[in-house]
């Protein structure tokens, strides 16, 4: 590569990383705003924050095309945003309003966004993996090259549905990328008390499936490693099991004080904050402090606007409920 080429590439990459950084920041601030709204009782039910894992969602979405799919668990805000859902649609859904992505019917755990091919937002641990396999099945059936990324937690690994989905995806060579976001805990249970083999990616051996395993703090690494699996899915129609080591900075949900983790452990992981790492790249590439401040401002405005929108959005009239249970 010539110097010029390298510089062009670096400039392109810089633009991209700026955008990744912006997305991660927006997710972070969005989640902080959600936590606040929860304490104000504008949001109810369970609220599972994504803070700490932003690089995974943003890196994964960056490895995909718009037409590709993402499907995930109840910890779905960050992935929805990364796949293109607006802060307004997110916040209004959290507030249960008609302006929300799911008209306020789904709430925090059940984000859906058809135009952006975001397929939910599911609450039964492990049970959406077969659905992901079905989405991959449809891509293969139509030969349209669309890839499905399926996120799940370390807690989902031992579920029967997980095994069945992987068995079928491997047998039928479906274009699905299974991504286990291993944040070391399922609720209060550490990995060591839920799995006999701590390396989740080794499950792939049982299916003869391609596998990968890496830390999820550096958004570029996440994007590039996932991109390999996406390529494998798109061009060879082969599934991959990826384990991404990550960490949630908050409790499992808002009601969890997180007593099962030491302060030191949390602090240790905060040192590997994806925002810090990405900012490191950008600073190295000469992005000035002012730019970060500007970005912080614009994200703040975006979130404030979203909260306002959510506040003002009407509630779905109850008499319209029945029409959402069946298609006419």
């Amino acid at each position, binding site marked *: 590569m010539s110097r010029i080429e390298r510089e062009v590439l670096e400039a392109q990459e810089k633009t991209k990383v700026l955008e990744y950084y912006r997305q991660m920041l927006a997710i972070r601030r969005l989640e902080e705003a959600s936590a606040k709204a929860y304490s104000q009782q504008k949001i109810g039910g369970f609220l599972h924050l994504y803070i700490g894992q932003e690089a995974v969602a943003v890196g994964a979405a960056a490895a995909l095309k718009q037409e590709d799919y993402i499907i995930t668990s109840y910890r779905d805000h960050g992935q929805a945003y990364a796949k293109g859902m607006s802060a307004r649609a997110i916040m209004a859904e959290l507030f249960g309003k008609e302006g929300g992505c799911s008209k306020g019917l789904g709430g925090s755990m059940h984000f859906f966004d058809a135009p952006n091919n975001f397929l939910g937002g599911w609450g039964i641990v492990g049970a959406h993996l077969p659905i992901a396999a079905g989405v991959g099945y449809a891509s293969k059936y139509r030969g349209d090259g669309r890839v499905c990324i399926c996120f799940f937690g370390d807690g989902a690994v031992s579920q029967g549905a997980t095994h*069945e989905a992987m068995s079928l995806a491997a047998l039928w060579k479906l274009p699905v990328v299974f991504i286990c976001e291993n944040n070391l805990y399922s609720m209060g249970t550490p990995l060591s008390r839920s799995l006999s083999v701590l390396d989740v990616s080794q499950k792939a051996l049982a299916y003869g499936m391609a596998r990968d395993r890496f830390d999820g703090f550096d958004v570029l690494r996440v994007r590039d490693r996932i991109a390999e699996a996406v390529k494998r899915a798109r061009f060879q129609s082969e599934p991959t099991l990826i384990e991404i080591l990550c960490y949630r900075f908050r409790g499992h949900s808002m009601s969890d004080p997180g007593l099962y983790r030491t302060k030191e452990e949390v602090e240790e992981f905060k040192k590997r904050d994806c925002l810090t790492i990405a900012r490191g790249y950008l600073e190295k590439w000469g992005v000035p402090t002012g730019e970060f401040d500007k970005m912080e401002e614009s994200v703040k405005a975006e979130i404030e606007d979203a909260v306002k929108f959510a506040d003002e959005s009407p509630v779905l009239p109850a008499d319209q409920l029945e029409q959402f249970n069946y298609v006419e």
Partner: protein
Amino acid sequence: MPRTVQLREAIREAMTEEMERDENIFLMGEEVGYYNGAYKVSQGMLQRFGEKRIIDSPITEAGFAGIGIGAAMVGLRPIIEFMTWNFSLVAADQLINHAAKIRQMSGGQYKCPVTFRGPGGPANQLAAQHSQALEALWTHIPGLKVITPGTCKDAKGLLKSAIRDDNPIVFIESEVMYGDSGEIPDGEYTIPIGVGDIKRPGKDITLIGWSKMVKVMLKAAEQLAAEGIDAEVVDPRTLRPLDEELLVQSVKKTGRCVIVEEGWPMNGVGAEIAYRLQRRCFDDLDHPVERLTSMDVSAPYHRQVEASIRPDPDKIVALVKKVLYLD
């Protein structure tokens, strides 16, 4: 000119015609392809449509039910066969917590046009795990539609409607009737979901039942006719949605009703129908609504013992006489 076909053929015709019409439809299940179906329902379909559209699945009911759901969400129209509905219980979560709720949870953005079908109902000497009428469970769940045809004609027409419907469908065929023959119209036809059918008009008493119970009720009606009792046999055909109006009109006319159900009594579909009838026909009823169900036990294996727990024409006749105060 109507033709005579077996129930399994009627179902095969429905699937075949729809698959020829719409290439988004595929059939997936255990042994549906190379084996031609455990009950030969899909005989010849692999040859006709190829491996892409007739898919033998490993034994993974939750897995391939989920595949059907996922594929349906993004635009295909899967037919998922459970080898029998007994095995669907390992996939219950996929149907109840997923298929049934997609439309609502997504605020109307996604639909789930998948047809789950297969044989159900008590079978012959298959004992507790393989001999169950489970329709009451599925009918409880909003978001699902439940169809339980009792004749070849209804099976074909309703299955075609089911496959074309944009909602998740539970379609339960009577396992022990696959070899039964019946007339079906020649050429294309469908039967709408949610519309019941009077299988035999009568004026003295209303018998309500579905699936295999239709022929059992018709036999009972014959026996009753010989004794001068004119029973009306009403088949709701689909349990969710339920054609309440048809049932109500019949009972308003006859003033008496016996519901015949192959499943267990508690919270059965018969309980639901009885609730609605006593509510709508309170002043018309000359006797409480009665029901005849399978005994409230797991299915025993021995032929005789098994038969003794099921509704049959003689038991219906006896109950009818009681309701007519003729006993």
